[in-house]
């Protein structure tokens, strides 16, 4: 090997080693090892819940509602969640966006035919109610099909959202359980109110 060629071996080896190592790192995803980027809040997102009944429904409504609110406010779902959790008081725009988001979430679930029949919510609603036992018994005697026909779930949930004190709920996010309870209570209350109205009308 000539002296010139021999002299080039070490720099050539250095370049080859660098290309090999950096190439292997990049091929294995080295350039993409970055934190998850928040998805576009306006894009469709599959929302599921591990819970059944009112609790599961509530979770789906909250997750979809926050998504819609974030889309309205032009921020990510995660940024809105963190903002709401860190602020003392929500802004008017946030309150309005969350209320509209919850309403839209009810509509989306209805459009997807994903709302449970209202009869499936009745037992849970009655469980925590302070109705007298005769009214409770009368309601339980009503066949599910009658309840479902009389009480469209979408109407019940829309009433629940309208009656929900969104500002109070968002102000109390430090106590995360309070959020869940407040939304659940509103749903339960709405189911209960609709049912008692109908039963009293019947009686």
């Amino acid at each position, binding site marked *: 090997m000539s002296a010139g060629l021999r002299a*080039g071996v070490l720099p050539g080896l250095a370049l080859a080693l660098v290309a090999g190592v*950096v190439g292997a790192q990049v091929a294995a995803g080295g350039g993409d090892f970055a934190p998850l980027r928040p998805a576009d809040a306006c894009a469709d997102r599959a929302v599921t819940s591990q819970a059944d009944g009112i*609790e599961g429904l509530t979770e789906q409504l909250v997750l979809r509602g926050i998504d819609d609110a974030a889309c309205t406010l032009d921020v990510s779902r995660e940024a809105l969640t963190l903002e709401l959790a860190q602020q003392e008081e929500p802004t008017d725009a946030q309150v309005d966006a969350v209320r509209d988001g919850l309403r839209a979430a009810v509509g989306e679930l209805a459009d997807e035919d994903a709302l449970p029949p209202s009869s499936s919510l009745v037992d849970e609603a009655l469980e925590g109610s302070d109705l007298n036992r005769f009214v409770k018994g009368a309601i339980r005697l009503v066949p599910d099909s009658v309840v479902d026909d009389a009480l469209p779930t979408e109407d019940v949930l829309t009433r629940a959202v309208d009656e929900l004190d969104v500002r109070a709920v968002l102000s109390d996010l430090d106590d995360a359980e309070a959020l869940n309870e407040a939304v659940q209570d509103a749903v339960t209350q709405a189911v209960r109110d609709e049912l008692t109205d109908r039963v009293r009308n019947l009686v």
Partner: protein
Amino acid sequence: MGLLLTVTVGLVLADSAIVTLALPEMLEQLDASVTEVAWVLISYNLVLGVLAVPAALRPLRVRPRILAAAGIAVFAGASAWCAAAPTIEVLIAARCLQAVGGAFALVGALELLVARSGERRGVAAWVTAGVVGTAAGPVAGGLLTEAISWQAIFIAQVPFAALAVPAALAVRTRHQGQAVPEPAVSHRPVIGHNVTLALLSAALTAALFLLVLLLVEGWRHSPATAALTVSVIPVAALAAQPLARLLRTTPDLELAAGCVLVAGGLVGLALPPSADLWWTVAPQALVGLGLGLSVDELTHRAMEDRLPRARHAAWTISARHLGVVVGLAVLTPVFTADLLDAEEPATEAIAALVLDAPLQPDDKISVARALGSHLTDQRGQVPELDGAFAELDVRAEDEAAVADLERGLDDQLDRSVSLAFRDSYLVGAGLAALALLSVGLTAAAGAARRSRARRSLV
């Protein structure tokens, strides 16, 4: 005797980065801020860099045995003071004094090693001890911190230095008992090689300082694990010389290869595909090989045929340690700013995973509450999430999903921190690329000078 002096040279230069892995423990025990703790590192390098050349002035250098013994004694005493420092201010003051002793010890030890082993072998031992000390410092510091405490780093140095004092006094020189005569000529320092050395040292700071911070503070490994991981660099640095002898090339090309390897290794460290420690091994090997090929060659060439030898050696010390200070000054603001910027995307990624976690709503709320208070408590640092999960009481059916969520959140933290370090590594790679440019310019200037000399002869 020669071995003790060589070890002392290695210790003085290892101290440049030996405390890197101990910084988190110092921060906690001495109740210091990050900036104050960074000064434990900066102060030593700054004082050593500034004092090295004055320490080699003729009046001090004429009696190298006294110079070396006094320097080593001050270094030993200051090391003991560092170990006993009750506050960060005292520790920084002790580190400054340690560097003062170190500067005199380095200059004196070079003269004694040459007197004992001859010019070539003495200089080679001094240079090699410096390279090995620099590369092995963080490893030794990390192991001692993990096994005992950060104070052990300094205590361990005292006996070696204490034994080196009589060893220095016992070295027989040709001018036994008399002043070393000043050489008839006095060469100017080689600016090109010293600038390259400074740039490369600044770049190596990214590997020696940032990597251990990434491993301990970012990826949350123990100092011992981090120390073992970064031991790749000194091992590879030791392998560089046999490789260079095998593939004999010109000194300029060897330096260029070294700079390319350091720059490439830092790019590799900037692009890890995961937080698995194995992904740091190959880039570190590149950095270690580059360090082994370039730093001792540059030091040799900056001192080669230059008189007085000690002053030119001092210029190399000055270039290296001021390079480290420049590296810290450039890289620290970049990575601290990037680390702060990483907080928001990391928190959002955590929020996304929690919102989408396949958990019962009440368990999801429990996780969110625990994480919320935990992250608030640890704001300003990379959080440890296992504490939040340890306090959780979730239903049995959700335990597997919670464990998956914890792994997912840890992965998001690893990703955020790794991304935050990326720019600093790339800046380090840029400094190594500047060192490569400096090698090229120095080589071109040398070629032009030789050509002019040939023409004038003709």
